[in-house]
């Protein structure tokens, strides 16, 4: 009789505790590796690829201000007054760009014939918001206002804290590094505008981002 009942006399229930442990460990792993920093990176940008650029040194404790520089234009969708940026649609297999779209802040997608926006506006992408040279509303400050508020934070967190006058009049510099992530299709004037605005706020250290290079470990 005992052989006919599966599991015999002891009622066999799979012990789920180890699997639960393991799943929680996996969750912990993914929670730890989740990269909140990459949220401020606009991954739709295509960065220039160069030989001499180096990956960020391991353990470099730099305070970074990441600026995604792009060109935007009015959303072509009728009745939409948001701004749109160019998106490259890549083929899933070949990873080659097969077409271009304009994607606006509200999510409208419109096909775009070329891989560049002509006569577009200079803009910064900040967590999905497009900031232009002019302020659009309270939530969409101008590039200058945005950089000023970032600089104010940097002034306060400097040791010892700096004042705006010390930076503007006495030429003290902010220690933060401005990371310029500019799209390859950006015109130089747009990038230069952003750099000059940063300089006005007291930033002196810049890192010009380039795209994928083979990552060398060590050195």
């Amino acid at each position: 009789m005992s052989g006919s009942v599966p599991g015999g006399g002891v009622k066999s229930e799979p012990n789920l505790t180890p699997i639960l442990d393991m799943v929680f460990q996996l969750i912990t792993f993914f929670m730890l590796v989740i990269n909140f920093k990459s949220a401020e990176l606009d991954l739709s940008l295509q960065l220039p690829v160069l030989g001499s650029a180096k990956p960020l040194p391991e353990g470099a404790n730099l305070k970074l201000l990441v600026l995604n520089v792009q060109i935007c234009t009015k959303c072509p969708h009728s009745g939409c007054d948001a701004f749109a940026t160019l998106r490259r649609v890549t083929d899933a297999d070949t990873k080659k760009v097969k077409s271009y779209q304009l994607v606006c802040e509200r999510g409208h997608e419109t096909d775009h014939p070329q891989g560049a926006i002509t006569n577009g506006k200079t803009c910064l992408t900040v967590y999905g918001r497009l900031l232009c040279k002019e302020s659009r509303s309270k939530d969409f400050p101008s590039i200058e206002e945005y950089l000023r508020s970032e600089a104010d934070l940097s002034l306060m967190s400097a040791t010892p804290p700096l004042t705006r006058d010390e930076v503007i009049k006495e030429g003290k510099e902010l220690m933060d590094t401005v990371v310029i992530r500019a799209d390859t299709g950006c015109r130089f004037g747009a990038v230069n505008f952003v750099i000059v605005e940063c300089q006005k706020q007291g930033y002196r250290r810049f890192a010009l981002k380039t795209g994928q290079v083979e990552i060398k470990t060590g050195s």
Partner: protein
Amino acid sequence: MSKRHSAEDVELNVTAMLDMAFQLLAFFILTFRPPPGEAQIFLKLPPAQPVAGMTGTERAGSDESKDPKDVKTTKSVVVNLLDRDSGSVTDVQIGIPSVSMKPVPYNDLEKELRVYFKAKEDNEAGQKSGQGDYEQVVINASPTLRWEEVMKVVDMCTKFTAGKGDKLPAVSLSAAGPDPGG
């Protein structure tokens, strides 16, 4: 099991918890994106016209020539990049603006830059040669030029001006006009 626990015993329902845990796991796996393998060129870019009374604490990569307290001036080579509104480099000029700007083919730019910086390398190697000790390249580009093209030249210049140790390359950027975009 029922032998050890009475019927009223509350047992934690591990299955439900496991379900939830799997859902969380699925969420984290699906939202996981490996960080992009990006690199960068670090530059120290002081403003084009520093305000008076600036302290002379800036070292590498800085345009110290406008600093009144600094006796030594940084000798800069200027590279003009013109694009005739095409977005790509059409004309390149290299030289010292107050002396002469020499048009060079784009492909020869690296060679021309080497002429200016070779003297420096020679000096460091203990050989004296007449050419000046140029320390900085100012890239003066048309505002309509594509960023990619500017970065190629920045890349070229960092090879010559890369400082020793943790000094930053002495490359400075300026635009030959305002940003055309609104």
